[in-house]
């Protein structure tokens, strides 16, 4: 970035902010100049909050969701329905479904979807972990809630074809059908999500 040669601190700040999703060069510059004017105390608090992330936040060893305690609160809650697992792509999707308040089962966060073009196969997302969970636990239903994108559908299809021959007596359902094609779970409103969840169909 030209014009910042004598302000390397701001230049670095803009570069870092610009690397965040949804923040272009313009917003990054505006944010940087905003931050510069904040009192030192607030800046330190912000810096401490951010630098605490790597130590404090981890992935639940069972479901893969983000958590500060392991296993996460959902996995260790005896009040939840341990016979149901809802399979999602990202931790944010758990948040969206939790907001509907109607789902009481467990989750499994894949951490991505199948995409040969990006070198992502079953080994790169948490599919083996899911199959292990199915064999050991008292699961009766799997809800495949990957996004209704091409990759999300292929991932759901692969999971269904992999789970069915295991003969575990598990019902596999797909719930994205009510969502707009190509839409994303994370950005779908609570009401639509509730409807989709209630009207899920056998795969």
């Amino acid at each position, binding site marked *: 970035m030209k014009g910042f040669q004598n302000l390397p601190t701001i230049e670095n700040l803009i570069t870092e902010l610009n690397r965040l999703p949804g923040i272009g060069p313009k917003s990054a510059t505006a944010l940087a100049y905003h931050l510069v004017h904040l009192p030192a105390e607030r800046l330190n608090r912000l810096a401490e909050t951010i630098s605490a992330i790597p130590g404090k936040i981890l992935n639940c060893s069972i479901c893969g969701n983000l958590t500060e305690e392991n296993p996460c609160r959902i996995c260790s809650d005896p009040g939840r329905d341990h016979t149901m697992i809802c399979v999602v792509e990202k931790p944010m999707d758990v948040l969206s479904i939790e907001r509907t308040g109607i789902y009481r089962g467990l989750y499994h966060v894949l951490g991505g979807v199948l995409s040969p073009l990006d070198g992502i196969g079953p080994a790169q997302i948490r599919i083996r972990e899911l199959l292990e969970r199915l064999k050991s636990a008292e699961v009766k239903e799997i809800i495949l809630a990957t996004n209704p994108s091409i990759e999300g559908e292929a991932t759901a*299809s692969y999971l269904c*074809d992999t789970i069915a021959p295991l003969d575990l007596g598990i019902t596999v359902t797909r719930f994205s059908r009510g969502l707009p094609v190509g839409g994303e779970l994370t950005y779908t409103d609570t009401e639509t999500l509730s409807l989709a969840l209630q009207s899920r169909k056998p795969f």
Partner: protein
Amino acid sequence: MHIHQLRIQNFRNIREASLDLTPGVQLLIGRNAQGKTSLLEAVYLLATATSHRTHNNRELITQGETTAFIEAEFDRDGSRHRLSTGFDSKERRFRIDEKPLKRVSDLYGILKAVFFSPEDLEFLSGGPIARRRTMDLGLCQQNPPLVRVLLDYRKALKQRNTLLRQADASITTRNLVKAWNPELIRLGTQILSQRADYTLKLVEKASDYYASITGSRENLAGVYRSSMTHLAWRKGGEIPDEKDLKRYFEIALEETVEKDFLYRQTHAGPHRDDIVLEVCGKSAERYASQGQRRSIVLALKLAERDLLTSPNDPPILLVDDVTHEMDMRRCDRFLENICSSGQVFLTFTETESHRGLIKNATEWHVQDGMISRRSG
């Protein structure tokens, strides 16, 4: 639909042009390689984000420049809009009424255009790829949501083919390959049924034009040939409904899977379909003469124009260098047909006698990338 004002910057050899246009016929007059075709190409690029001459942005930008810009102010359904595109060698951006278009697929249907060019002959000589491309360009302008479907299909296909290329044929790999089938089927079925339907309509209209061009001495027919389970339809043939097509597609994918692993690509699907044209019952691709070929592609283009015309709203016609091979009588009829259509851009060389056949046109002089209004 017509363009009032067209602005072009750094596009091929046109450094700077600003044209105030009339709703009718625009004659672009000049020697070869002066910028006539580039002007038509610029309008078509604005309508469809594609060029008939290149996929490479770099080639479209004036040498020594880094960005090019095209903008049209046009009337549609009684209101005025402004559509523009700016691009460098890497990316192209479109804006409609100052708002950026999120996806190129949202562009289709905004400004409709049909391009008549000498390269149209590739419909007969360029193999199935050229034929599918022509069909899809016309179809997508008529039915914009299909753009998204085509792009998604292409992506699903790429994903599946990537797997086939890496693959051993183990059970896991087979399951992985199969996982892409439902999306291929869902998207491919839509493409297949709409493209086949469009093709049959297009060929039917084109055969009327062909009969009129040849004085009813010859007849043109066409078949849409699907790559799967040897399905083919001609005029009057019923295209199965989507439910049946889905089933056929599913069976075809299962039948060809061994071949897919062997050749490492997907064999069944609308990406392998073809359109076969026949003149008097014989394959046009193989047997048609040069003159017949010209008449065929002209008939197809006129048919495309008709299918793209919504009531009282013909698409913009871009007619490049297709008249000089015609005899006087045929040319007269062709010009009469297209010039009554709405806004038409026609290129002519200085010396062409056919030019005299056109009345009430706005004349433009094109020389060395400069475009100026000719008076008188």
